[in-house]
Every structure is written in structure tokens, then in C-alpha cells.
């Protein structure tokens, strides 16, 4: 796997992490639009994209678990690294649980109801906040503490 990486990449983690972030945000947008225009294909698309985002989060999580021991972290960045790791856990659990719930809700047609759709949208926004927090800490590790930067 290491041989497949571009020369500049310290590990595979930075190549993967953008997928769950972008996919989740797009899924939330689909939810938002489906509140205005209640179309089945919009709900189906949202559920599919949430599922893909959860899978992306799973891969990002395991790649992060591997990456954390491959990079040198200055002492000042250790708390940020720990918090990034913790938030990565929380985000993964939330994404997977939420994607499963959305799948079941779509299958049972619960998400046809406006109140349920609004609740799902709000939970989707919570998920976006969680991944934003995780990403913020990851960005801080790289751009403030220089973790994963090659000389």
C-alpha cells in the first residue's frame, strides 16, 4: 500500500479524509432540499450518500489509527492529536449509527413524514458539526504543529 502513495504523502489518511466530509455535507443538502420538494429520489440519494459517508468514515478512522503512530508529533501537539483521535471515534460511531437508522427509516417509509424528515435533517447537521470538529483538530495538527509535513 505504501508504494502506491504519492511521494509527498506521509500516509494514506490525508487522501481519504475528505470523502466522508464532502459526502456527509452533500447528503445534508439533499435532506434540506427534500424538505422543500418531497421526492423519493432525493430521499433515496440522501440515504445512499449517508451510507457512503459512513463507509468513508470507517476507512478514514482505520487509516488515522495507522497514521498516528507513523508520524512524529511534538509534545505541544499531543493533546490535539488525542482530541482528534477521540472525535474521530465519536464521529465514526455517529455516522454508522445514523446511516443504519436512515436505511431502516427509508425501508419502512418513516422518512415520508415531515416531522421525521426535520429530525433527520437536524441530526445530519449534528453529524456535520462532529466531522467539522474532527477535521478542525486534524487541520490544526498539520498546519499548527507540522505533523505529517516532510522536510
Amino acid at each position, binding site marked *: 500500500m505504501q508504494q502506491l502513495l504519492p511521494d509527498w504523502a506521509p500516509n494514506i489518511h490525508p487522501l481519504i479524509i475528505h470523502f466522508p466530509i464532502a459526502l456527509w455535507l452533500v447528503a445534508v443538502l439533499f435532506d434540506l432540499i427534500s424538505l422543500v420538494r418531497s421526492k423519493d429520489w432525493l430521499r433515496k440519494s440522501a440515504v445512499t450518500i449517508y451510507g457512503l459517508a459512513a463507509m468513508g468514515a470507517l476507512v478514514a478512522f482505520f487509516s488515522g489509527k495507522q497514521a*498516528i503512530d507513523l508520524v512524529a508529533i*511534538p509534545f505541544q501537539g*499531543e493533546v490535539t492529536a488525542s482530541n482528534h483521535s477521540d472525535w474521530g471515534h465519536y464521529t465514526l460511531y455517529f455516522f454508522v449509527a445514523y446511516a443504519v437508522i436512515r436505511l431502516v427509516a427509508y425501508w419502512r417509509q418513516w422518512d415520508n413524514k415531515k416531522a421525521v424528515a426535520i429530525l433527520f435533517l437536524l441530526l445530519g447537521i449534528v453529524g456535520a458539526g462532529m466531522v467539522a470538529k474532527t477535521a478542525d483538530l486534524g487541520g490544526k495538527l498539520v*498546519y499548527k504543529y507540522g*505533523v505529517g*509535513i516532510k522536510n
Partner: protein
Amino acid sequence: MISIKYSIATVLLAIVFMIAGCSQGKKKENASEHDKSEMSHDEGQNMAEEQAEHEHASGEEGHHHEGGSIEMSGNESMTWKPGSGNNYTLTEDFHFIIGGLENISPQVIQNDSGDNHLQLTANGSPTAFVFHQTYGNVGMAAMINVVGFDGTLKLIHHAKNVENHEFVSINGGKMKLGRMVNGNEEVFDEGSFDPVNEWINLRVSAAGTHFKGYMGNETVTHGHGDKMQDGYVGIMLNGIGNVLIKSIEIVPLEDE
């Protein structure tokens, strides 16, 4: 119907591009701060060393006595180095939680370059000496030479006493990360490294529930456990022979 779908897809794409654009803008705003703070780990270490030297030279926030010298930096990090006194008193900077001076016979020796090293001659009795100050989240790095030592050397932190502390230990090419609770050892992780016949930079970090043991910049052990109450940091020896210590760096790890 198809045109509505295309319209929605176009709007979605436009929103995604707008979000990406905003993100880039924010990056540019932060560029100057980034330029100041971004550094590689090695650069960071070099800068820390330079800063330490600068502070040493200017006498900034440092105190020296016949025994060791302690240099403080702005973020409360501290680097201890042995002084040049003939009658070195280890207890000026440290106190013992097990054993005593008679078990390690400390003395300051000087190498050809004029650098001071603290030489400890361990007699086989477990001995641990810790700084007087307590710490919570902490990073500790010790520049040591254990070529003449046969036994286990531990960097200990969150130490209440010898029966309650956390540690990273090395013995030969093996490293162990864990904690002692009421005298019972709990191991978080174990690893191995290539033993080298020279100075090594043994490092440990305790950040919340995350604990790591490093050999230089390489992570050898990584484990997790409950956060412990603040405690002392220091060094524990259990073995026979000579250990040389060039410096000990203590960095309090601030929560965000």
C-alpha cells in the same frame, strides 16, 4: 422532470464549490499565522533547542546552582541539565520516592566537549527520583545513555508513590508502557526497538487518556487508560551499572 433534477444538481454543485471557495479564503486569511507556526517536527525540535540555548545565554527564566540547571520557557516547559558542581546534590532538584542517593551514587562528569553528564551507578536496589513539581498532562524526554546499565529504566509520570505511577520503561530492546496501581502493574502496550550503543532520546507523553512511548521520533508504544490525578515526573532505575543523563525535558501539555 429531468430538467428539475438537473437544476437541483446544478444548485448542489454550486453550493459545494462555494463552500470549497470559502474554505480556501479562510486558509489565506490564516496564512500569515500559519507561516509563523507551521514547522516540521525536526524544525520544532531544533527551534526548541535554539530557544533553550538562547534562554540559557540570556539567563531568561533559568536558575542555576552548583548541581543542575533548570531552564524554563514561556509555556512552562522545562529543561534540566546537570551542573558542574563537584559536590552535586541530586536532592536540590529531585526527591526520592524509593531508594536513595546511596543506591545510585550520582556524580557529574564532563565529556571531551565539556558537556556535563549526570552519571548514576545503580547497585541493584529499585530507586526512583522525581522533580519536586507535579504535572497533569505531560510530555517528558530524557537524553540518556544506558550502554553500561543492565536492568530496567523507567520514565515515570503521574507518580504519587512507587506503587502508584505511570511509566514507559526500557530494558534491552524492549519498551513497555503502562501504570502501577496499588503495586499492580497494568500494561497498556509493549514494543521493541533496535538498541543502539549511543545516546538515546527516550520520550513519553500522557495526553488525557492517550499514552505514548517514543524512541526519538519513532512511536514504539501507544496505549490508553483512564486519566490519572496530577503527580510527579522522574526516573526510576532497577538494575546494575551506569546510566548517563544529559538532559531531561518536561513539557506540560495544555488542554484546548
